[in-house]
């Protein structure tokens, strides 16, 4: 009996050492045949049981079966190990340079003026304003007369104008859209009108074509304080939450009282710097309480309703916001400049 048991130990030791040396799944399978196959060593051992006294057979049989199970499990483990090795090798072989660029198209960009315009519109939309557009080539009637500027009004000199005919022109502001809105809707009106406007100026801070966002509120009990609160909201959103605004008296034919609106310089926050010419303030827009004549011309009773209006230049705000020194850069359309603007609308 001890002879057989020794033999079993021998086989187990042999299997263990051979398996540890096998680096191919084929070798492992060869081992399985050699040890556990029909004419394998362990199988032969089992056959030789008939030569053993019957009372010892169960014990020996158990030992042989345990050895078989042990070898089977060693083989499985080895195969799993080899499989994992193989996968690791493959993974290693399939390594790529992850620093190379991705496929598919790189995202493009929005023009900075679009970004600024949309940012302004977002604030106003959140305050209940709807967005309206109108024609860029306008009648003198909507552009001037409805804005309390009859022909030969001296304030027309404030806005030099491109004319198509004596009665048709390139709009000098988006105010005519407001007149068109008042024609088709009744108060309460809260509307913002973005769009291109035209004036014959061309230098570092003026372009013959530029974009405006103008707005109009007509309702009962609207005050100059409401204008200030609304514009404060926009200024804080556009620049930063510490931004303050101030009113300076001014004149526009379509508003009364009229104000120029300054914001604290977004660069120095009011301390005074090169951008704000040391004043701490930057002029960004014009505004005021809607002139009763403008309401009356639109069929709205100024004794019942009041309102405010404002207008800002998108290019000018873009220049302040992004630190662009010359307005003409915005119209150069150099891809390298344009690609720098990452924001979404």
């Amino acid at each position, binding site marked *: 009996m001890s002879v057989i048991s020794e033999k079993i130990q021998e086989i187990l030791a042999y299997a263990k050492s051979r398996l540890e040396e096998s680096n191919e799944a084929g070798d492992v399978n060869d081992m399985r045949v050699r040890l556990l196959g029909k004419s394998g060593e362990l199988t032969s051992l089992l056959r030789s049981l008939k030569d053993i006294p019957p009372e010892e057979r169960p014990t020996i049989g158990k030992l042989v079966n345990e050895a078989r199970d042990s070898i089977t499990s060693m083989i499985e483990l080895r195969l799993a190990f080899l499989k994992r090795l193989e996968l690791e090798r493959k993974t290693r072989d399939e390594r790529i340079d992850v620093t190379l660029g991705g496929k598919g198209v790189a995202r493009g960009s929005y023009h900075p003026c679009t970004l600024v315009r949309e940012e302004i519109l977002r604030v106003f939309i959140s305050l209940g304003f709807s967005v309206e557009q109108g024609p860029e080539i306008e009648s003198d009637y909507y552009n001037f007369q409805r804005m309390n500027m009859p022909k030969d009004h001296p304030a027309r000199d404030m806005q030099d104008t491109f004319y198509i005919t004596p009665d048709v022109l390139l709009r000098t502001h988006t105010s005519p859209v407001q007149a068109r809105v008042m024609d088709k809707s009744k108060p309460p009106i809260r509307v913002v009108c973005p769009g291109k406007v035209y004036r014959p100026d*061309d230098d570092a801070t003026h372009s013959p074509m530029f974009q405006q966002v103008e707005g109009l509120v007509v*309702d009962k009990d609207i005050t100059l304080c409401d204008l200030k609160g609304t514009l404060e909201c926009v200024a804080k959103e556009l620049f930063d939450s510490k931004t303050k605004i101030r009113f300076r008296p001014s004149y526009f034919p379509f508003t009364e009282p009229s104000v120029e609106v300054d914001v604290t310089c977004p660069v120095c926050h009011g301390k005074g710097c090169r951008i704000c010419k040391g004043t701490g303030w930057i002029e960004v827009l014009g505004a005021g309480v809607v002139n009763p004549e403008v309401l009356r011309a639109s069929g709205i009773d100024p004794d019942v309703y009041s309102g405010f209006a404002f207008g800002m230049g998108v290019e000018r705000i873009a220049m302040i916001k992004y630190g662009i020194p010359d307005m003409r850069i915005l119209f150069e359309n150099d891809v390298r400049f344009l690609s720098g603007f990452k924001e979404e609308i």
Partner: protein
Amino acid sequence: MKVTLNWLKDFVDIDITAVELADRLVNTGFEVEEIIDQRAAIKGVVLGRIESIVRHPDADKLVICKVDVGSEVLQIVTGASNIAEGDVVPVATDGAVLPDGKRIKSGKLRGVASCGMMCSGEELGLSESDYKGAGVYGILIMNGEDKALGTDINDVLGYDDVILDVAVTANRGDCNSVLGIAGEVAAILNKPLKMPDLSFSADKASKTGDYVSVSVKDKQLCPRYMAAAVTDVKIAPSPEYIRRRLKAVGIRPISNLVDITNYVLTEIGQPMHAFDMRDIDGGKINVRRALDSEKIVALDGKEYTLSSDMLIIADAAKPCAIAGVMGGENSGIREDTQGVIFESAKFARDSVRRTSRGLGLRSDSSARYEKGVDCSLQEIGVRRALHLVQELGCGVIAQDMIDVFDNKPKARRIETSLSRINGILGVDVPADEAVRILAALRIQVERDGDKIVCIPPEGREDLENVNDLAEEVIRFYGYDKIDGTLMEKGKQTVGGKGLRIADTDLVKRLCVAAGYNEILTYSFVSPKMCDVLMLPEDDALHSSVELLNPLGEDVSRMRTTLAYSIISTLASNYLKSIHTARLYEVAGVYYDKGAELPEQSERLALGAYGKDEDFYTVKGVIENIMRAFGIDAAYERSTLPYLHGGRSADIVAAGGKVLGYIGEVHRDVSAAFNVEERLYIAELDIDMLHKYARRKYVFEQVSKFPPVERDLAIVVEEDVSAAKIIAAIKKAGGGLLKEVSVFDVYRNKLLLGEKKSVALNLVFRADDKTLTDADISSRMDRITEKLHSELGGVLR
């Protein structure tokens, strides 16, 4: 409007500095563009007298002077030769600063100490008209001065004023005068406004009517005309204070009579004209419209041809002045003038403006009239002028000035309430404070509790309604007292963009996602655009809108297509050696269709170049946009002249409406922009996309049964398009054929000759059963037959 501090002080007590005053003016709506302190330019220059002159021991051209400057005697070395002992001269002492910024220091000249410099007129910034002798080359000799030696030269020259350049807004015509600004200053300082001295005594022996009669033919254009005669005129220079003030505000002094008219214009804001009495033929002044092609030589020496919409001042025989614009050369003041007729009139603002523009002739007078002169100023103006004639002793004033003034405007009454004013402002201005402010602006206020009735002063034509009053109150109460509120009393409204604007945003988002950079180009283009794009003469793109007053010929037409702009932007990037570009723009195009306003629509333009770009990359972007709008578009070969004939397509919606195009730019066009690379562009009408959009989702049951796929390759002639093959297959395939797509196009001259082989994938599916081979093969037979009969296609 330039005013001086001293001039303002004639009318209001000012006890703050010019800088403080400027600040207060800004806060009440008058931008002060410049503050010029006359004394700031010259510092440390005093009056001195040359006591002795000796030769310099080591220099032939230099002399050594002893100069008495009151407190001491300075030794000064100079090279000037126009000086003599006893001459009074300006002396720049050690540390002095001259108008050009030059600083004078003591030093040695050829070994001899020199403690200052004697100045020339030029070095003090003076010309001959500023000071007699200032134009001479050499030291300025001031022997006529009687001021003590050592007196600051600014005091000698009368430089004791500060000039404020005030921007006056278009509504405040009344503030285009010293008196007008003084009125605001009085309100700012809450002090009374002193009126100018208008007194004079007339000669009992003569009347204006003895010399001239006035007839106003057009009272629309001339609501008021005053005339006053002055005889025994002595033309001479004006006194120094008038000359200095005029120079300070930028007007050249000429002679007493002319200076008086300019002084009154600046001080009162009333343009005046003085006619030489001798030149008024028949003693008749006719204010009338000019005859067509009537001519006049104006004071500028140029001849102007008038028209019947212009107002003139004529005598019995000829035009003597263009009303409100400029006098005639034939009747102006001369050296030997002995009698004058002063004109002080109100001419209609629009008429002066039109005439001035029409003739291309502007003057201080026309500029002033264009800003609005009210009916109260004519009398103040003429009386002030006569007062000055008397003060200067330059003539004898006739009695009974003529005043043609038929329709006196009624005083305006604004009836409202203090609570209404506060309601506009949103600020509780105390009632007494509001009334005080209005009264300080010389507005008559009758108050009955909350109710007020306001009568503005005559000059304030801008005060028409309660909003105007509210502005006056807040201007002086202070804009800093306005606190922001958020329309708490207003009705809540729903904000947002309509679908049309949202569609533009969608197009932009798709373009950005596809890698395109947004550009911004001018709406105006050159008329050469049509030639560059090789458009035939009858092309619709020619019907562009033209500007009457463009900034230049190359920006004189409103564009009818974005093609030109996108191509030139691609070109400008290409020429900067940028190797790839993908650009887009959303902008308007404008067509003159004969209506009052041109037709305007919004377009998208795409443009691209670079090694990975071709027709299909641009088409991919367009297709994506079409998918987003649910539009099933067809792509048909395009005939646009500026595109490559074989590589361009019109984008056509169901029903044949052309929405735009895609294509490679014609080589001749890109060559015109000096571009050698292939450029690809596309244009889409966004208004049409919006109109043809089909974006409503309709639920459709997805089939549970598996599809059956078949591939087929068909050999056809080169000009049989994929679209035609697919259409034929779909027609023959029946309802079970769900999808057809091309997966390969194969050309091989040896195997196929000039033909091509197109490989397609077909997907059949039924909603109610699994399809069998039998179901498919009959359909495939029909398809093959159709491809053969319709397109001459042969299975490969």
